């Protein structure tokens, strides 16, 4: 029997990485919030690799943190190995990646949720989203409890009509042995939401006691640990190792001989899988001449022997899995604890969302995470915090938080989704950001703390220390730009030691820093000056000055494009009516309904000529809106 179970401002459906951020943001911004999960033991679960960060993804985590999100803090408390990737490739692509103790991570996040004021957590499957007159009203659980809510955030991940596929076996199921959400898809469809079917997969988990690590290459963590959160102080702890091994000809032979039993090649899977995350059978088929593929063995936590086998995701039958895993050096006697599987699920076509992540046809209904066609915990969390913030902005009738492509990877992520859509699970990569030199992981706080503070997610204390940091950086940069270092034997001695040309006349410290061989600390040494900056302040000074020319260039370009971004397109415009635009472009524009000329220009199939016609039309529209 149906009954009214509660009145809320915001209801969040799903307590994965997106849901947790959304619920915390809404509650912290003062809204009465409820978070639903099919199983409360699976809050913030990592059903695939037990790690957070990586290229592009590490950037996202730092941005979430700068906005006042939780992911960075939780992983800082629970990681068991930390590495900065790409350190030889330049500051813009430095990427932080940490192995998580999966269970600790979940427990830490769950406790954070539990201790949050304004937030209720509830185990229930949501079967219906209720809407009336184009506005969302609330949600209903599988046992008929009605929760009224002024805003709803859907963060259902891969649960919607989830189907697990292992070889020729398939059954209805969610990730990691959990139940799927069978009913919500129908409710979404009845609200006029177009669904797509995506697929992803995960490798087996094995018992570490059955692995011979002596046959593998050890991959330890970094000596110097850089935390994810700008609020976490210096970190020191013992770290666990990952292990590298390789497939071989024998592995490939077994895969090839059993390809006919693969559901992917047998046509059983209809969903679209990600190109960047291929199954091992995919790799063997598509890169047939490659003699070996990498396999990483990653610990799932400190209190378990279970390990994750990165690189060996597969949907081949279990018996084939066992055979092929055992061909790999170090895994000859391996025992599989959890079988690898592929999962198919419903997600929505993100083109139906506005840049605020609100569904365009129903006010107050927001979507975030894998349900929007993305992949990855970090991508999910990034959308989660934005959807959470915007659900509150909606209720309080304030301006939505929309981040620009030159402001944040989060901006790139959401703009890509709502403008270009996606035909495979979308993963963040640094190359998706055209202003990559501006969107570094080291300056995420400088880019976004202000916004987090305005939203009410950054404490006054944190904000004050952020302002102090900013000031210290600015002062030091200006000092280096205005200080001339005169030549001396001592100075030239240091320059020679660093393998760079000696100076004969005075030179500005800022110019000296532009030499690849010279670090900020070298400058201080030459000046015989004591360092008064923190490590991250010194890092800012160094990067901002060293790469100044390149950074300024991108800033200039971003400014040019901003003019197009600022050209708003009225909501009542009828794109079908603009005759000069090609038919294809007209249809695409009508579908995406871009908010600005900038957004319109990024829609695939809309040519520069179409954009110039659109701009002329807008001019005329302005003069006579009829």
């Amino acid at each position, binding site marked *: 029997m149906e009954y009214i179970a509660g009145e809320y401002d915001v209801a969040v459906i799903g307590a994965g990485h997106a849901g947790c951020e959304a619920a915390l943001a809404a509650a912290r911004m003062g809204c009465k919030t409820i978070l639903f999960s099919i199983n409360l033991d699976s809050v913030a679960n990592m059903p695939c690799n037990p790690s957070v960060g*990586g*290229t*592009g993804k590490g950037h996202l985590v730092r941005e979430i943190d700068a906005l006042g999100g939780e992911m960075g803090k939780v992983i800082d408390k629970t990681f068991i190995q930390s590495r900065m*990737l*790409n350190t*030889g*490739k*330049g*500051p*813009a*692509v430095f*990427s932080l990646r940490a192995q998580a103790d999966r269970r600790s991570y979940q427990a830490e996040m769950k406790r954070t949720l539990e201790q949050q004021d304004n937030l209720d957590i509830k185990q229930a499957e949501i079967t219906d989203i209720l809407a009336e007159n184009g506005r969302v009203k609330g949600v209903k659980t599988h046992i008929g409890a009605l929760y009224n809510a002024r805003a709803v955030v859907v963060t259902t991940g891969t649960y919607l009509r989830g189907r697990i596929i292992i070889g020729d076996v398939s059954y209805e199921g969610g990730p990691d042995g959990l139940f799927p959400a069978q009913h919500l898809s129908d409710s979404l469809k009845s609200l006029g939401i177009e669904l797509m079917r995506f697929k992803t997969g995960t490798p087996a988990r094995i018992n570490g006691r059955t692995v011979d690590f002596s046959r593998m290459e050890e991959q330890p963590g970094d000596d110097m640990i850089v935390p994810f959160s700008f609020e976490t102080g210096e970190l020191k702890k013992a770290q666990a190792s990952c292990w590298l091994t390789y497939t071989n000809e024998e592995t490939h032979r077994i895969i090839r001989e059993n390809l006919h039993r693969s559901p992917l090649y047998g046509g059983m899977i209809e969903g679209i899988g990600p190109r*960047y995350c291929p199954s091992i059978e995919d790799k063997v088929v598509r890169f047939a001449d490659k003699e070996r593929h*990498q396999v*990483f063995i990653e610990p799932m936590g400190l209190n378990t022997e279970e390990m994750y086998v990165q690189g060996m995701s597969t949907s081949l039958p279990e018996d084939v899995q066992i055979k092929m895993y055992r061909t790999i050096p170090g895994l000859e006697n391996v025992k599989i604890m959890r079988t690898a599987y592929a999962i198919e699920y419903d997600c929505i076509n993100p083109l139906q969302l506005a840049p605020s992540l609100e569904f365009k046809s129903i006010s107050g209904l927001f979507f975030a995470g894998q349900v929007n066609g993305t992949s990855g915990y970090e991508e999910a969390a990034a959308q989660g915090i934005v959807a959470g913030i915007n659900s509150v902005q909606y209720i309080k009738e304030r301006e939505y938080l929309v981040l620009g492509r030159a402001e944040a990877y989060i901006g790139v992520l959401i703009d890509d989704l709502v403008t270009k859509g996606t035909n495979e699970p979308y993963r963040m*990569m*640094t*190359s998706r950001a*055209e202003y*990559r*030199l501006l969107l570094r992981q080291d300056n995420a706080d400088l880019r976004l703390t202000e916004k987090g503070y305005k939203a009410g997610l950054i404490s006054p204390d944190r904000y004050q220390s952020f302002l102090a940091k900013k000031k210290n950086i600015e002062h030091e940069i200006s000092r280096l730009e205005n200080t001339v270092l005169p030549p001396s034997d001592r100075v030239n001695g240091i320059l020679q030691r660093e393998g760079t040309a000696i100076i004969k006349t005075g030179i500005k410290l800022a110019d000296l820093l532009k030499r*690849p061989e010279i670090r900020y600390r070298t400058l201080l040494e030459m000046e015989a000056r004591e360092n008064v900056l923190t490590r991250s302040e010194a890092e800012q000074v160094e990067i901002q000055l060293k*790469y100044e020319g*390149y950074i300024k*260039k*991108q800033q200039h370009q971003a400014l*040019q*494009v901003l*003019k*197009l971004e600022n050209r708003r397109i009225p909501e009542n415009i009828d794109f079908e009516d603009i*005759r*000069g*635009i*090609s038919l294809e472009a007209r249809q695409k524009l009508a579908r995406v309904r871009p908010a600005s000329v900038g957004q319109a*220009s990024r829609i695939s199939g809309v*040519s*520069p*000529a*179409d*954009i*110039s*016609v659109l*701009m*002329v039309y807008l*001019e*005329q529209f302005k003069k006579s809106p009829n």
Partner: protein
Amino acid sequence: MFYDTIAAISTPPGQGGIGIVRISGRESFEVVRKIFKPVKPYNIDEVKTQTLKYGHIINPVSKEIIDEVLVSYFREPYTYTRENITEINCHGGALVLKGILELVVQQGARIAEPGEFTKRAFLNGRLDLSQAEAVIEMINSKTNAERKVSLNQLEGKLSEKIGGLRNLLVECIADIEAGIDFPEYDIEEVSREKISERIDTCLNQVKGLLKTFFEGRIIKEGITVAIVGKPNVGKSSLLNALAQKEKAIITEVPGTTRDIIEEYIVIGGVAVRVLDTAGLRQTEDRIEKIGIDRTKAAIERADLILLVLDGSEEIEEEDREIFKLVKERKAIVVINKSDLDIRLDIGKVREVFAEKEIIEISAREETGLDKIERKIKDMFIKNELEYDNLTVITNVRHKRILEEAEEELEEVVKTINSGLPVDMLSSAITQAADKLGEITGETVGEEVLHTIFSKFCIGK
């Protein structure tokens, strides 16, 4: 607003064999129907595209026959503007053409702005930006060779070439990016040498294209040749002989040509703009002095100087003064009046102009002129230009963008050599690729749009 019906006389002004009035837009068939009386009546709705009808243009009010014409019909969307187009082919002559255009306007068409047909073709998505520019150049082109270059550009040869270069850069970027975004995997790191090689290729091609701007400009604008010499040596006769037209006034009185007279001639398919200057002579005459100043200015401006000497007279002081002006310039020494007795000491001339070509002619008898033409061709059109295969740039916007791309590519080379990390390198290559994309309109920047708007006078 755009889709009203426009009309224009689309043949060049002046007396021609035939003239064309072109009408484009939704009402273009209807407009013509009201003033055209075909010999064999037909239903306009059934007329197939690209058909020609014979009949007369008649003033619908006075019933007066204006001209005997052929009307061609082109149905959208497969027309130049992607709109319905009609063309009235009539007997040339300004009065007839104007009369017909007036009638067309009375029936509801509007007189097109310059370039408006092309603007519509562009706005309706038929041409990309570089193609639209090429059409405008084709309309303004002066010679056959130039028209062919325009045609190449129109068919996207330049776009194709630029696209190829851009792809090369995009490949470099992709190579670098793969390593950046998938650092854990054993992707072979692309070496700086390999990137460097491809950047060099690209840079060289961009430089090559830029070099063609000189020849491109010659093809498009022609070269400027100044004919100089003291009075009465036959400068104007030479010009006339070359142009085979009576334009300059030729007299026996020294100093008659006081202004600069221009004439276009075509040598080897290239437009040559010949400036006939006032005779250079020390003078107290004020008017003639102005002429001489202009001559000096013309020498400055010219790509080539034809120094004319009178073969029937000895070298005078005045000649020597002129020698000084010409000596450091690209010049051909022309000894005229070879039909008369030679009194000029050619050996001495050769001493002064050791490096320069000396050609004897008779302007009056039109002998030796072909030698001048051949020499001009040798000097400016190094290789016989194969216009059919050649991609040259003639457009200033393209030149500017290519120069900027060249700078960006040099920046890339610098980045490679400086040992800066690959994220900077990738960013530098992206800048260069985006720059090239501006030619084909592949990058939308405010500047590109601004250029479009100013060139096509839209969005007022």
